Protein backbone atom coordinates (compact mmCIF):
# COMPACT_ATOMS: atom_id res chain seq x y z
CA UNK A 1 0.00 0.00 0.00
CA UNK A 2 1.41 3.35 -0.91
CA UNK A 3 1.47 6.13 1.57
CA UNK A 4 0.83 9.76 1.03
CA UNK A 5 1.80 12.67 3.18
CA UNK A 6 -1.78 13.67 3.80
CA UNK A 7 -3.19 10.26 4.60
CA UNK A 8 -5.11 10.90 7.81
CA UNK A 9 -4.68 7.33 9.00
CA UNK A 10 -0.99 7.32 8.62
CA UNK A 11 1.03 7.58 11.78
CA UNK A 12 3.60 10.20 10.98
CA UNK A 13 6.71 8.46 12.14
CA UNK A 14 6.30 8.21 15.86
CA UNK A 15 2.56 8.64 15.77
CA UNK A 16 1.77 12.11 16.99
CA UNK A 17 2.56 14.40 14.10
CA UNK A 18 5.68 15.68 12.44
CA UNK A 19 8.62 17.45 14.01
CA UNK A 20 11.44 18.10 11.63
CA UNK A 21 9.15 19.42 8.98
CA UNK A 22 7.37 22.05 10.97
CA UNK A 23 9.63 24.79 9.81
CA UNK A 24 9.92 23.78 6.16
CA UNK A 25 9.90 25.17 3.60
CA UNK A 26 11.85 27.76 5.48
CA UNK A 27 13.64 29.87 2.95
CA UNK A 28 14.06 30.61 -0.67
CA UNK A 29 15.64 27.93 -2.83
CA UNK A 30 19.39 27.82 -2.72
CA UNK A 31 20.67 29.23 -6.01
CA UNK A 32 23.33 26.55 -6.33
CA UNK A 33 20.83 23.72 -6.46
CA UNK A 34 17.77 25.22 -8.00
CA UNK A 35 14.36 23.71 -7.52
CA UNK A 36 11.69 21.76 -9.31
CA UNK A 37 9.59 24.75 -10.05
CA UNK A 38 12.30 27.21 -10.93
CA UNK A 39 12.59 27.79 -14.67
CA UNK A 40 16.09 27.60 -16.06
CA UNK A 41 17.63 25.87 -13.10
CA UNK A 42 19.03 22.39 -12.90
CA UNK A 43 16.76 19.71 -11.59
CA UNK A 44 18.38 17.58 -8.97
CA UNK A 45 18.20 13.81 -9.31
CA UNK A 46 20.65 11.86 -7.17
CA UNK A 47 22.12 8.82 -8.86
CA UNK A 48 20.87 6.52 -6.15
CA UNK A 49 17.37 7.74 -6.88
CA UNK A 50 17.57 7.78 -10.66
CA UNK A 51 15.78 4.49 -11.11
CA UNK A 52 13.21 4.92 -8.42
CA UNK A 53 10.63 7.54 -7.59
CA UNK A 54 12.00 10.99 -8.32
CA UNK A 55 12.22 13.19 -5.26
CA UNK A 56 10.44 16.40 -6.14
CA UNK A 57 11.89 18.93 -3.83
CA UNK A 58 9.49 21.66 -2.77
CA UNK A 59 10.09 25.29 -3.71
CA UNK A 60 12.68 26.91 -1.51
CA UNK A 61 14.51 23.70 -0.87
CA UNK A 62 17.33 23.55 0.09
CA UNK A 63 17.04 26.86 1.93
CA UNK A 64 19.11 29.79 0.74
CA UNK A 65 21.04 29.65 4.00
CA UNK A 66 22.44 26.19 3.28
CA UNK A 67 26.14 26.15 2.41
CA UNK A 68 28.53 23.73 0.69
CA UNK A 69 29.78 21.07 3.10
CA UNK A 70 33.40 20.50 3.94
CA UNK A 71 34.77 18.04 6.45
CA UNK A 72 34.08 14.86 8.33
CA UNK A 73 30.59 13.98 9.41
CA UNK A 74 28.94 10.96 11.00
CA UNK A 75 25.66 9.14 10.55
CA UNK A 76 23.92 5.95 11.57
CA UNK A 77 23.96 3.03 9.15
CA UNK A 78 22.91 -0.60 9.17
CA UNK A 79 23.88 -2.43 12.33
CA UNK A 80 25.05 -5.37 10.24
CA UNK A 81 28.10 -3.48 9.02
CA UNK A 82 31.47 -3.98 10.67
CA UNK A 83 34.24 -1.49 11.35
CA UNK A 84 36.05 -0.60 8.15
CA UNK A 85 33.21 -1.64 5.85
CA UNK A 86 31.67 0.88 3.49
CA UNK A 87 27.93 1.46 3.68
CA UNK A 88 26.18 0.27 0.50
CA UNK A 89 23.91 2.21 -1.81
CA UNK A 90 20.94 1.30 0.36
CA UNK A 91 22.29 3.58 3.08
CA UNK A 92 22.02 6.61 0.81
CA UNK A 93 18.33 6.47 0.02
CA UNK A 94 16.82 9.80 0.92
CA UNK A 95 14.23 9.69 3.73
CA UNK A 96 11.51 10.85 1.33
CA UNK A 97 12.07 7.75 -0.79
CA UNK A 98 12.21 5.23 2.02
CA UNK A 99 9.24 2.94 2.46
CA UNK A 100 8.85 3.87 6.11
CA UNK A 101 9.44 6.68 8.52
CA UNK A 102 7.72 9.99 8.91
CA UNK A 103 9.37 11.24 5.70
CA UNK A 104 8.06 8.41 3.52
CA UNK A 105 6.28 10.12 0.66
CA UNK A 106 6.49 13.52 2.33
CA UNK A 107 7.74 15.23 -0.81
CA UNK A 108 6.64 18.64 0.45
CA UNK A 109 9.04 18.56 3.36
CA UNK A 110 12.46 19.89 2.52
CA UNK A 111 14.20 18.08 5.38
CA UNK A 112 12.91 14.78 4.03
CA UNK A 113 15.06 15.34 0.95
CA UNK A 114 18.17 15.55 3.13
CA UNK A 115 20.31 13.04 4.99
CA UNK A 116 21.00 13.42 8.68
CA UNK A 117 24.69 13.89 9.35
CA UNK A 118 26.40 14.90 12.59
CA UNK A 119 29.55 16.97 12.95
CA UNK A 120 30.30 15.44 16.35
CA UNK A 121 30.34 11.68 16.79
CA UNK A 122 29.74 12.14 20.51
CA UNK A 123 26.17 13.17 19.76
CA UNK A 124 25.55 9.72 18.31
CA UNK A 125 27.33 8.03 21.21
CA UNK A 126 25.19 9.97 23.64
CA UNK A 127 22.03 9.05 21.76
CA UNK A 128 23.01 5.41 22.11
CA UNK A 129 22.52 5.71 25.86
CA UNK A 130 18.97 6.88 25.23
CA UNK A 131 17.67 4.68 22.47
CA UNK A 132 17.87 1.02 21.59
CA UNK A 133 17.10 1.98 18.00
CA UNK A 134 20.32 4.01 17.94
CA UNK A 135 22.28 1.24 19.66
CA UNK A 136 21.18 -1.15 16.94
CA UNK A 137 22.92 0.98 14.31
CA UNK A 138 26.56 1.27 13.34
CA UNK A 139 28.23 4.66 13.09
CA UNK A 140 29.88 5.62 9.81
CA UNK A 141 32.12 8.57 9.14
CA UNK A 142 31.91 10.31 5.79
CA UNK A 143 33.93 12.97 4.04
CA UNK A 144 31.89 15.71 2.44
CA UNK A 145 33.40 18.13 -0.05
CA UNK A 146 32.05 21.41 -1.25
CA UNK A 147 30.92 19.91 -4.56
CA UNK A 148 28.74 17.33 -2.86
CA UNK A 149 25.67 19.41 -2.23
CA UNK A 150 24.54 21.74 0.49
CA UNK A 151 24.34 21.46 4.23
CA UNK A 152 22.68 23.34 7.03
CA UNK A 153 22.91 22.97 10.79
CA UNK A 154 19.62 21.77 12.24
CA UNK A 155 20.27 21.09 15.91
CA UNK A 156 17.69 19.46 18.13
CA UNK A 157 15.98 21.22 21.02
CA UNK A 158 18.85 20.50 23.36
CA UNK A 159 21.43 21.53 20.79
CA UNK A 160 23.59 19.09 18.95
CA UNK A 161 25.65 18.87 15.79
CA UNK A 162 22.85 17.57 13.58
CA UNK A 163 22.94 18.82 9.99
CA UNK A 164 20.65 18.33 7.04
CA UNK A 165 22.71 17.43 3.98
CA UNK A 166 21.15 17.75 0.54
CA UNK A 167 23.44 15.75 -1.80
CA UNK A 168 23.97 17.11 -5.30
CA UNK A 169 26.33 14.53 -6.69
CA UNK A 170 24.75 11.16 -7.20
CA UNK A 171 27.84 9.24 -6.15
CA UNK A 172 27.71 8.11 -2.54
CA UNK A 173 30.28 9.88 -0.40
CA UNK A 174 33.40 8.16 0.89
CA UNK A 175 32.24 6.53 4.09
CA UNK A 176 33.44 3.86 6.47
CA UNK A 177 31.97 2.31 9.57
CA UNK A 178 33.91 3.50 12.60
CA UNK A 179 31.81 1.97 15.39
CA UNK A 180 29.72 -1.15 15.24
CA UNK A 181 26.23 -1.57 16.60
CA UNK A 182 25.93 -2.23 20.32
CA UNK A 183 22.88 -4.43 20.13
Amino acid at each position, binding site marked *: *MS*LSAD*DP*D*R*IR*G*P*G*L*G*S*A*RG*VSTPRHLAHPALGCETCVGQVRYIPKTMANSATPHRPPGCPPATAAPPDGTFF*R*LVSGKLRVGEAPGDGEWVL*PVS*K*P*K*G*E*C*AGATDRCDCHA*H*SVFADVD*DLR*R*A*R*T*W*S*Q*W*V*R*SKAIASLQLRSDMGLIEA*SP*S*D*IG*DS*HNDWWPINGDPPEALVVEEAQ*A
Partner: protein
Amino acid sequence: MDEVYFDHEGPRLFSATSRSGRRFLAVAVDEDESSETYLYLPVSDARFGEIRSGALDLRTAFREPEDGSLFVVVADYEQPSRNRVSVVSPDEVAEDWLPLEGSRLQASTATRPVITAEALSLEASQRGRAMLAVELDPADIYRTEYPLRSLARISRGIQDAVDALAQEAAGRATARGAIPESILQEAELAFVESRAASFVLVLAPTSPPRLFEASLLVDASARMTELIEAGHDPESLSRLLAGSGPRARAKYRAFLEALQDDDSGASFWFAEPNTPPRTATLRREEVRGSLELLRSTTTEVREIELSRASIIAVHLRRGTFELFDHALGRRYAGYMEPDARLEIAGLPTGDQYFYRATLLAEEQYSETTDEVFTEHRLRSISERTETGNP
Protein backbone atom coordinates in the same frame (compact mmCIF):
# COMPACT_ATOMS: atom_id res chain seq x y z
CA MET B 1 5.22 16.89 18.78
CA ASP B 2 6.68 19.37 21.28
CA GLU B 3 10.42 18.92 21.24
CA VAL B 4 12.89 16.65 19.51
CA TYR B 5 15.99 15.71 21.50
CA PHE B 6 17.51 13.38 18.96
CA ASP B 7 16.70 13.23 15.29
CA HIS B 8 18.12 10.93 12.64
CA GLU B 9 15.97 11.20 9.56
CA GLY B 10 13.00 11.32 11.88
CA PRO B 11 12.59 11.98 15.60
CA ARG B 12 14.03 9.21 17.77
CA LEU B 13 13.73 10.79 21.21
CA PHE B 14 11.12 13.46 21.64
CA SER B 15 8.25 14.81 23.69
CA ALA B 16 4.72 15.13 22.41
CA THR B 17 1.30 16.13 23.66
CA SER B 18 -1.87 14.33 22.68
CA ARG B 19 -5.05 16.15 21.65
CA SER B 20 -6.39 15.64 25.15
CA GLY B 21 -3.38 17.44 26.58
CA ARG B 22 -1.53 14.41 27.88
CA ARG B 23 2.22 14.73 27.60
CA PHE B 24 4.53 11.90 26.59
CA LEU B 25 8.23 11.28 26.32
CA ALA B 26 8.89 8.86 23.49
CA VAL B 27 11.90 6.91 22.31
CA ALA B 28 12.52 4.75 19.23
CA VAL B 29 13.33 1.19 20.26
CA ASP B 30 12.98 -1.11 17.27
CA GLU B 31 12.21 -1.39 13.58
CA ASP B 32 11.80 -3.93 10.81
CA GLU B 33 11.30 -3.65 7.05
CA SER B 34 7.99 -1.87 7.30
CA SER B 35 7.46 -0.68 10.84
CA GLU B 36 9.00 1.32 13.65
CA THR B 37 8.38 0.81 17.35
CA TYR B 38 8.39 3.49 20.03
CA LEU B 39 7.98 3.49 23.79
CA TYR B 40 5.73 6.29 25.00
CA LEU B 41 6.00 7.37 28.64
CA PRO B 42 3.11 9.49 29.98
CA VAL B 43 4.45 12.25 32.22
CA SER B 44 3.09 15.01 34.43
CA ASP B 45 4.51 18.50 33.96
CA ALA B 46 6.53 18.20 37.15
CA ARG B 47 7.96 14.81 36.17
CA PHE B 48 8.67 16.07 32.68
CA GLY B 49 10.67 18.98 34.11
CA GLU B 50 12.73 16.58 36.19
CA ILE B 51 13.44 14.31 33.22
CA ARG B 52 14.14 17.13 30.79
CA SER B 53 16.56 18.85 33.11
CA GLY B 54 18.37 15.61 33.89
CA ALA B 55 17.41 15.45 37.57
CA LEU B 56 15.73 12.12 36.84
CA ASP B 57 17.59 9.73 34.57
CA LEU B 58 15.79 8.28 31.57
CA ARG B 59 16.01 4.65 32.59
CA THR B 60 14.43 5.33 35.97
CA ALA B 61 11.74 7.42 34.31
CA PHE B 62 10.77 4.58 31.96
CA ARG B 63 11.04 1.93 34.67
CA GLU B 64 8.94 3.87 37.14
CA PRO B 65 6.14 5.59 35.22
CA GLU B 66 3.85 7.72 37.35
CA ASP B 67 0.76 5.83 36.15
CA GLY B 68 2.48 2.47 36.40
CA SER B 69 2.27 1.86 32.67
CA LEU B 70 3.81 2.74 29.31
CA PHE B 71 2.58 2.60 25.74
CA VAL B 72 4.21 0.58 22.99
CA VAL B 73 3.40 2.23 19.66
CA VAL B 74 4.08 0.28 16.47
CA ALA B 75 3.83 2.40 13.35
CA ASP B 76 3.17 0.11 10.38
CA TYR B 77 3.99 1.96 7.19
CA GLU B 78 2.95 -0.86 4.90
CA GLN B 79 -0.52 -1.14 6.35
CA PRO B 80 -1.31 1.90 8.49
CA SER B 81 -4.56 0.27 9.53
CA ARG B 82 -2.40 -2.19 11.47
CA ASN B 83 -0.77 0.49 13.63
CA ARG B 84 -0.82 -0.79 17.17
CA VAL B 85 -0.85 0.88 20.54
CA SER B 86 -0.64 -1.34 23.60
CA VAL B 87 -0.46 -0.55 27.28
CA VAL B 88 2.30 -2.38 29.13
CA SER B 89 3.76 -2.38 32.60
CA PRO B 90 7.48 -1.59 32.87
CA ASP B 91 8.14 -5.24 33.75
CA GLU B 92 6.80 -6.30 30.36
CA VAL B 93 9.20 -4.08 28.45
CA ALA B 94 12.29 -5.79 27.08
CA GLU B 95 15.25 -4.78 29.19
CA ASP B 96 17.30 -3.61 26.21
CA TRP B 97 14.51 -1.31 25.05
CA LEU B 98 15.09 0.87 28.09
CA PRO B 99 17.61 3.72 28.09
CA LEU B 100 20.96 2.81 29.60
CA GLU B 101 21.71 3.27 33.28
CA GLY B 102 22.42 6.90 34.13
CA SER B 103 21.49 8.37 30.74
CA ARG B 104 20.08 11.87 31.06
CA LEU B 105 18.71 14.62 28.87
CA GLN B 106 20.17 17.66 30.71
CA ALA B 107 18.29 20.38 28.84
CA SER B 108 17.96 23.74 30.57
CA THR B 109 14.46 23.71 31.96
CA ALA B 110 12.57 26.55 33.59
CA THR B 111 10.90 25.03 36.63
CA ARG B 112 9.72 28.45 37.85
CA PRO B 113 7.91 31.17 35.93
CA VAL B 114 10.17 33.23 33.67
CA ILE B 115 10.75 36.89 34.44
CA THR B 116 11.95 39.64 32.12
CA ALA B 117 13.25 43.13 32.77
CA GLU B 118 9.95 44.51 31.48
CA ALA B 119 7.93 42.29 33.80
CA LEU B 120 10.12 43.34 36.72
CA SER B 121 9.53 46.97 35.84
CA LEU B 122 5.77 46.42 35.78
CA GLU B 123 5.95 44.63 39.11
CA ALA B 124 7.96 47.50 40.61
CA SER B 125 5.27 49.94 39.47
CA GLN B 126 2.48 47.75 40.80
CA ARG B 127 4.17 47.30 44.16
CA GLY B 128 5.30 50.91 44.31
CA ARG B 129 8.68 49.63 45.27
CA ALA B 130 12.11 49.33 43.66
CA MET B 131 12.97 45.80 42.53
CA LEU B 132 16.30 44.23 41.71
CA ALA B 133 16.70 40.96 39.84
CA VAL B 134 20.00 39.14 39.50
CA GLU B 135 20.13 36.40 36.90
CA LEU B 136 22.77 33.70 37.32
CA ASP B 137 23.61 31.27 34.56
CA PRO B 138 26.09 28.62 35.67
CA ALA B 139 26.96 26.11 32.98
CA ASP B 140 25.94 23.00 34.86
CA ILE B 141 22.53 23.95 36.26
CA TYR B 142 19.55 22.81 34.23
CA ARG B 143 16.63 23.71 36.52
CA THR B 144 15.47 26.87 38.27
CA GLU B 145 17.39 25.81 41.33
CA TYR B 146 20.69 26.84 42.85
CA PRO B 147 22.92 25.13 45.41
CA LEU B 148 22.21 26.80 48.74
CA ARG B 149 25.87 27.02 49.69
CA SER B 150 26.72 28.91 46.51
CA LEU B 151 23.59 31.00 46.68
CA ALA B 152 24.44 32.11 50.21
CA ARG B 153 27.87 33.24 49.04
CA ILE B 154 26.53 35.11 46.03
CA SER B 155 23.71 36.71 48.04
CA ARG B 156 26.22 37.86 50.61
CA GLY B 157 28.41 39.20 47.81
CA ILE B 158 25.55 41.24 46.38
CA GLN B 159 24.50 42.69 49.73
CA ASP B 160 28.06 43.50 50.82
CA ALA B 161 28.82 45.23 47.54
CA VAL B 162 25.56 47.19 47.68
CA ASP B 163 26.30 48.18 51.30
CA ALA B 164 29.75 49.46 50.36
CA LEU B 165 28.46 51.32 47.32
CA ALA B 166 25.63 52.80 49.39
CA GLN B 167 28.18 54.05 51.89
CA GLU B 168 30.01 55.78 49.06
CA ALA B 169 26.74 57.15 47.70
CA ALA B 170 26.05 58.63 51.14
CA GLY B 171 29.40 60.38 50.98
CA ARG B 172 30.60 58.61 54.11
CA ALA B 173 32.88 55.93 52.66
CA THR B 174 35.34 54.34 55.03
CA ALA B 175 37.79 51.55 54.34
CA ARG B 176 37.57 50.07 57.81
CA GLY B 177 35.08 49.53 60.57
CA ALA B 178 31.38 49.02 60.57
CA ILE B 179 29.17 50.74 58.03
CA PRO B 180 26.72 53.04 59.86
CA GLU B 181 23.43 51.41 60.82
CA SER B 182 21.33 53.92 58.92
CA ILE B 183 23.13 53.11 55.66
CA LEU B 184 22.83 49.37 56.19
CA GLN B 185 19.13 49.75 56.84
CA GLU B 186 18.54 51.75 53.73
CA ALA B 187 20.62 49.45 51.53
CA GLU B 188 19.23 46.21 52.91
CA LEU B 189 17.74 43.84 50.35
CA ALA B 190 15.11 41.19 50.92
CA PHE B 191 14.75 37.99 48.94
CA VAL B 192 11.33 38.07 47.30
CA GLU B 193 11.26 35.00 45.06
CA SER B 194 13.16 32.94 42.53
CA ARG B 195 12.35 32.97 38.83
CA ALA B 196 13.60 31.46 35.62
CA ALA B 197 15.76 31.44 33.63
CA SER B 198 18.37 30.20 34.37
CA PHE B 199 18.07 31.22 38.01
CA VAL B 200 16.88 34.68 38.92
CA LEU B 201 17.00 36.13 42.42
CA VAL B 202 14.26 38.72 42.77
CA LEU B 203 15.12 41.23 45.50
CA ALA B 204 13.53 44.33 46.95
CA PRO B 205 14.50 46.86 49.61
CA THR B 206 13.41 45.98 53.11
CA SER B 207 13.02 49.62 54.06
CA PRO B 208 10.04 51.66 52.82
CA PRO B 209 10.80 54.02 49.92
CA ARG B 210 11.77 57.55 50.82
CA LEU B 211 9.56 59.93 48.97
CA PHE B 212 10.97 62.95 47.12
CA GLU B 213 14.50 61.73 47.65
CA ALA B 214 16.67 59.26 45.86
CA SER B 215 17.36 56.33 48.15
CA LEU B 216 20.84 55.03 48.77
CA LEU B 217 19.74 51.66 47.48
CA VAL B 218 18.79 53.21 44.16
CA ASP B 219 22.17 54.91 43.91
CA ALA B 220 24.05 51.81 44.99
CA SER B 221 22.12 49.58 42.59
CA ALA B 222 22.76 52.01 39.77
CA ARG B 223 26.46 51.98 40.58
CA MET B 224 26.51 48.19 40.75
CA THR B 225 24.77 48.06 37.38
CA GLU B 226 27.43 50.39 35.97
CA LEU B 227 30.21 48.16 37.27
CA ILE B 228 28.58 45.11 35.73
CA GLU B 229 28.08 46.88 32.43
CA ALA B 230 31.68 48.10 32.40
CA GLY B 231 32.77 44.48 32.28
CA HIS B 232 32.57 44.82 28.49
CA ASP B 233 34.95 47.76 28.45
CA PRO B 234 38.22 47.68 30.45
CA GLU B 235 38.66 51.45 30.16
CA SER B 236 35.27 52.19 31.70
CA LEU B 237 35.82 49.60 34.39
CA SER B 238 39.23 51.06 35.27
CA ARG B 239 37.68 54.51 35.57
CA LEU B 240 34.86 53.28 37.79
CA LEU B 241 37.21 51.30 40.00
CA ALA B 242 39.53 54.27 40.36
CA GLY B 243 36.55 56.23 41.68
CA SER B 244 35.70 53.55 44.23
CA GLY B 245 37.11 53.11 47.69
CA PRO B 246 39.01 49.99 48.82
CA ARG B 247 36.00 48.54 50.63
CA ALA B 248 33.73 48.76 47.59
CA ARG B 249 36.45 47.30 45.36
CA ALA B 250 37.04 44.43 47.78
CA LYS B 251 33.33 43.65 48.07
CA TYR B 252 32.76 43.80 44.34
CA ARG B 253 35.79 41.55 43.88
CA ALA B 254 34.37 39.04 46.37
CA PHE B 255 31.07 39.01 44.45
CA LEU B 256 32.87 38.40 41.15
CA GLU B 257 34.91 35.61 42.72
CA ALA B 258 31.73 33.92 43.90
CA LEU B 259 30.45 34.11 40.32
CA GLN B 260 33.75 32.81 38.93
CA ASP B 261 33.78 29.88 41.33
CA ASP B 262 30.29 28.92 40.13
CA ASP B 263 31.29 29.41 36.48
CA SER B 264 28.40 31.84 36.17
CA GLY B 265 27.80 35.18 34.56
CA ALA B 266 25.28 37.65 35.96
CA SER B 267 22.63 39.98 34.64
CA PHE B 268 21.30 42.83 36.76
CA TRP B 269 17.89 44.34 36.21
CA PHE B 270 16.99 47.27 38.40
CA ALA B 271 13.51 48.72 38.24
CA GLU B 272 11.95 51.65 40.04
CA PRO B 273 8.22 52.35 39.87
CA ASN B 274 7.20 54.03 36.62
CA THR B 275 10.77 54.17 35.37
CA PRO B 276 12.34 52.15 32.56
CA PRO B 277 14.45 49.30 33.97
CA ARG B 278 18.23 49.50 33.93
CA THR B 279 19.93 46.33 32.81
CA ALA B 280 23.49 45.09 32.58
CA THR B 281 25.00 41.73 31.79
CA LEU B 282 28.38 40.28 32.60
CA ARG B 283 29.02 37.11 30.67
CA ARG B 284 30.96 34.21 32.17
CA GLU B 285 34.13 35.01 30.25
CA GLU B 286 33.86 38.67 31.26
CA VAL B 287 33.79 37.79 34.96
CA ARG B 288 37.37 36.58 34.71
CA GLY B 289 38.43 39.67 32.73
CA SER B 290 36.82 42.03 35.26
CA LEU B 291 38.52 40.22 38.11
CA GLU B 292 41.94 40.36 36.48
CA LEU B 293 41.55 44.08 35.86
CA LEU B 294 40.33 44.66 39.40
CA ARG B 295 43.34 42.85 40.82
CA SER B 296 45.85 44.53 38.56
CA THR B 297 44.70 48.04 39.39
CA THR B 298 44.79 47.75 43.16
CA THR B 299 47.46 47.23 45.77
CA GLU B 300 45.09 45.13 47.86
CA VAL B 301 45.82 41.93 45.94
CA ARG B 302 49.20 40.25 45.57
CA GLU B 303 50.41 36.91 44.33
CA ILE B 304 52.30 34.43 46.52
CA GLU B 305 54.42 31.58 45.15
CA LEU B 306 54.85 28.50 47.32
CA SER B 307 57.68 26.20 46.25
CA ARG B 308 57.29 23.44 48.83
CA ALA B 309 53.73 23.03 50.03
CA SER B 310 51.69 20.07 51.17
CA ILE B 311 47.96 19.66 50.84
CA ILE B 312 46.32 19.39 54.23
CA ALA B 313 42.72 19.26 53.02
CA VAL B 314 40.62 19.75 49.90
CA HIS B 315 36.84 20.09 49.61
CA LEU B 316 36.03 19.96 45.91
CA ARG B 317 32.31 20.43 46.50
CA ARG B 318 32.86 23.50 48.64
CA GLY B 319 35.74 24.61 46.45
CA THR B 320 38.04 25.13 49.45
CA PHE B 321 41.63 24.13 50.20
CA GLU B 322 44.15 24.13 53.01
CA LEU B 323 47.89 24.06 52.28
CA PHE B 324 50.97 24.02 54.50
CA ASP B 325 54.02 25.91 53.26
CA HIS B 326 57.11 24.10 54.53
CA ALA B 327 59.43 26.98 53.63
CA LEU B 328 57.76 29.49 55.94
CA GLY B 329 55.90 27.10 58.22
CA ARG B 330 52.57 28.75 57.38
CA ARG B 331 49.10 27.47 56.65
CA TYR B 332 46.95 28.92 53.89
CA ALA B 333 43.25 28.24 53.37
CA GLY B 334 40.47 29.63 51.22
CA TYR B 335 38.62 29.15 47.96
CA MET B 336 40.11 27.64 44.83
CA GLU B 337 39.87 29.17 41.38
CA PRO B 338 38.18 26.88 38.82
CA ASP B 339 41.48 25.94 37.13
CA ALA B 340 43.07 25.10 40.46
CA ARG B 341 40.07 23.00 41.36
CA LEU B 342 40.71 20.86 38.31
CA GLU B 343 44.44 20.66 39.02
CA ILE B 344 44.10 19.65 42.65
CA ALA B 345 41.52 16.91 42.07
CA GLY B 346 43.14 13.57 42.76
CA LEU B 347 46.39 14.93 44.18
CA PRO B 348 47.44 13.08 47.33
CA THR B 349 47.39 14.89 50.65
CA GLY B 350 49.87 14.59 53.49
CA ASP B 351 53.30 15.87 54.52
CA GLN B 352 55.18 13.47 52.28
CA TYR B 353 53.86 15.08 49.07
CA PHE B 354 55.21 18.44 47.94
CA TYR B 355 53.72 20.88 45.45
CA ARG B 356 54.30 24.22 43.86
CA ALA B 357 51.35 26.54 44.29
CA THR B 358 50.35 30.06 43.39
CA LEU B 359 48.01 31.89 45.73
CA LEU B 360 46.33 35.25 45.72
CA ALA B 361 46.47 37.19 48.97
CA GLU B 362 43.57 39.62 49.01
CA GLU B 363 42.85 42.27 51.61
CA GLN B 364 39.33 42.14 52.95
CA TYR B 365 37.52 44.42 55.37
CA SER B 366 35.75 43.37 58.52
CA GLU B 367 32.12 44.33 58.86
CA THR B 368 32.35 44.80 62.58
CA THR B 369 35.84 45.97 63.52
CA ASP B 370 38.68 48.03 62.10
CA GLU B 371 40.48 44.86 61.21
CA VAL B 372 41.80 44.33 57.69
CA PHE B 373 42.46 40.66 57.10
CA THR B 374 43.80 38.63 54.23
CA GLU B 375 41.88 36.05 52.25
CA HIS B 376 43.70 33.52 50.11
CA ARG B 377 42.69 31.96 46.81
CA LEU B 378 44.46 29.08 45.16
CA ARG B 379 45.23 29.93 41.53
CA SER B 380 47.28 26.92 40.52
CA ILE B 381 49.02 23.88 41.93
CA SER B 382 51.38 21.32 40.45
CA GLU B 383 53.63 18.54 41.66
CA ARG B 384 57.27 19.30 42.35
CA THR B 385 58.99 17.09 39.83
CA GLU B 386 62.48 17.44 41.29
CA THR B 387 61.65 16.16 44.76
CA GLY B 388 60.37 12.79 43.68
CA ASN B 389 57.11 12.51 45.53
CA PRO B 390 56.52 8.92 46.60
